[in-house]
């Protein structure tokens, strides 16, 4: 496998160099860009696997840039921002960014996110679920870009990262028995929020959080094998 091409768009030269160097040390092929025009040049020259995009660029707003990239390609985008406001994060993800990092961050975190996105990109292509945005089951709505779950009473239901990933794995495989080991594996594809909690603890939490008005969560235990998501899933 050839080294993935990572495009870094960052206006602070020192930070750009630092990020570039640490990514190169970890086996990535890095192309730096200090502005939007430079970014477009590089993107037209070679195939880019991931764009690491600073939201606050001189002249252009990173959010607009993200929208423009999305119109042309579905290359994975990781936002990097000095703003940590949750609202910005949500807007960025809505516009089609794949992940969001707040300054300051360390190399380990950045690399983990890049690897997770690359792996997910390949998996999505395998499953042909590349454009998944929303799923519905039993009156519940799961919004993937915002990583947000809403209950049948249209209230926001907050899940931990690991719980959301577990729910995503279930939604990808509805009405199929999934072995515990496979669930652990699937849940690990998204890093960043990884936890050492056993799948069983996560399942019991998810059941409690997805119950509603006496209705039980649609997660069935299949003794000796694993679990099954019993609800019908409709994707949008």
């Amino acid at each position, binding site marked *: 496998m050839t080294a993935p091409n990572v495009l870094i768009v960052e206006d602070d030269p020192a930070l750009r160099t630092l990020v570039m160097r640490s990514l190169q040390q970890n086996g990535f092929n890095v192309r730096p860009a200090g502005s939007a025009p430079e970014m477009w040049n590089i993107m037209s020259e070679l195939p880019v696997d991931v764009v690491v995009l600073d939201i606050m660029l001189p002249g252009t707003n990173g959010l607009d840039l993200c929208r423009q990239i999305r119109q042309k390609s579905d290359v994975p985008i990781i936002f990097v921002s000095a703003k940590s406001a949750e609202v910005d994060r949500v807007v960025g993800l809505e516009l089609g960014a794949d992940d969001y990092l707040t300054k300051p961050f360390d190399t380990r975190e950045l690399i983990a996110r890049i690897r997770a996105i690359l792996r997910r990109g390949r998996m999505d292509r395998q499953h042909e679920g590349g454009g998944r945005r929303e799923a519905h089951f039993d009156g519940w709505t799961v919004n993937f870009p915002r990583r947000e779950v809403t209950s049948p009473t249209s209230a*926001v239901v907050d899940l931990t990262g690991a719980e959301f990933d577990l729910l995503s794995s279930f939604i990808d495989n509805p009405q199929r028995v999934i072995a515990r080991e496979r669930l652990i594996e699937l849940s690990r594809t998204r890093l960043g929020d990884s936890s050492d909690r056993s799948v069983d603890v996560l399942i019991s939490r998810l059941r409690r959080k997805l119950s509603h008005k006496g209705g039980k969560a649609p997660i069935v235990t299949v003794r000796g094998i694993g679990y099954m998501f019993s609800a019908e899933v409709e994707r949008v």
Partner: protein
Amino acid sequence: MHPSIGLLGRVLAIVLLTILIEFCASTILYDRASKLRVREDEVHRVAEHLSGASRVMIQRPPAERPAIAARLSSKNFTVRWVPTLPPAPPMSADLTVMRDQITHWEPVLAQHDLRLYLKEPGRGGLVTGSLQLADDSWITFKAPQLVDEGKFRFTWIVMMVVVALGLSLIAGLMVRSTLRPVRKLAQAAARIGHGERQEPIEETGGVEVRELVHAFNEMQARIHSLINDRVEALAAVGHDLRTPLARLQLRAEGIGDEGLRQEIGNDVMEMSAMVSSLLAYLGGEDDPEKQQPVDVAIMTATLVDEIADDGGRAEYEGIDHYDALVRPVGFKRAIRNLIENASKYGESVFVSGREDERGVTLSIADDGPGIAEDRLQDALRPFVRLDAARGRNTKGLGLGLAIAARAIEREGGTLRLSNRPEGGLLAEVFLPSPSIQT
């Protein structure tokens, strides 16, 4: 600003107006009071009696007249005959009216020099009078029931009191409306500095009041822009600090000494947390986030789960679901601050949620050292760090609880801190149920 009489002018005008009304009212009333209320039927009876008596008397010799007079007298009307009468004082004006009524009823009496006097005014209104006969001798008489003076006095007092009360009321209302802008000003002044942006007060009222309101509005605008400038500058610094922090973090990774690298990493994290809380605090005021239904019970449980996943000791018990209308990010930050605070100062965190008809209460308790009773209120103020009381950890800017308190207040809820009897701090977040919230 159109010209207006001043505050002094207004008060003077009110006083003048009330005095004027009072003057008119009492003049009219006094005028009516001095006109005795004459009972007309009695007047007619007296007139007939008198004309009868004068006719009978003149036909009898003077010696018989006293006896006849006695016979003509009754309980309500006494007649006496006298040969001469001492010169009498002039008649009072009200009684001329009565005399005119009498002579109008019995025109004969007009030739007899009829005189009337009011005796012992105030005691039932005894009217006495005299009548000259053709031979220059006189008939005197007493008619006790001609006028109702006493009754009239009482009404007069009542009416004066009513007028006085009415006037006080009018004057009070007018003074109040004159002073209304001043009261508005006082209320606005009391609100200033409590965070939320204020609309300028309407400039109405007297010249002095208008000038005051105008000056106040300008002061308010100046204060607001002053604070705004500071906030923007501070926020800009906060944002700008993050890029060098990111550089520092990445540079530190090149340090060979593992311990030093760790320490620098921790410093960067601490500084970054301070910047975040500062930005959260500064941004809280004009946070554009909209309210939406959120299951706050699950939100709280999830925050507890996250602490537990990070290796902390935290548990949640209580209601599984409670939908409330809140700003999700702001409210979650508030609850997270409280839970993180608890896990920072205590070994274990106990979080519970309970619901009643008034709303939902989320309680976050720890087994740490708690806060000295006299500093519980200070703990909610920004930039206050209770280092002496809470000892070991002095990280951060002291904004966590202030951010939490403000975010909870924005949702119409309350945050209450207290020390648990068994030790540790208890933070109780109460959100009123949507039906109570307006």
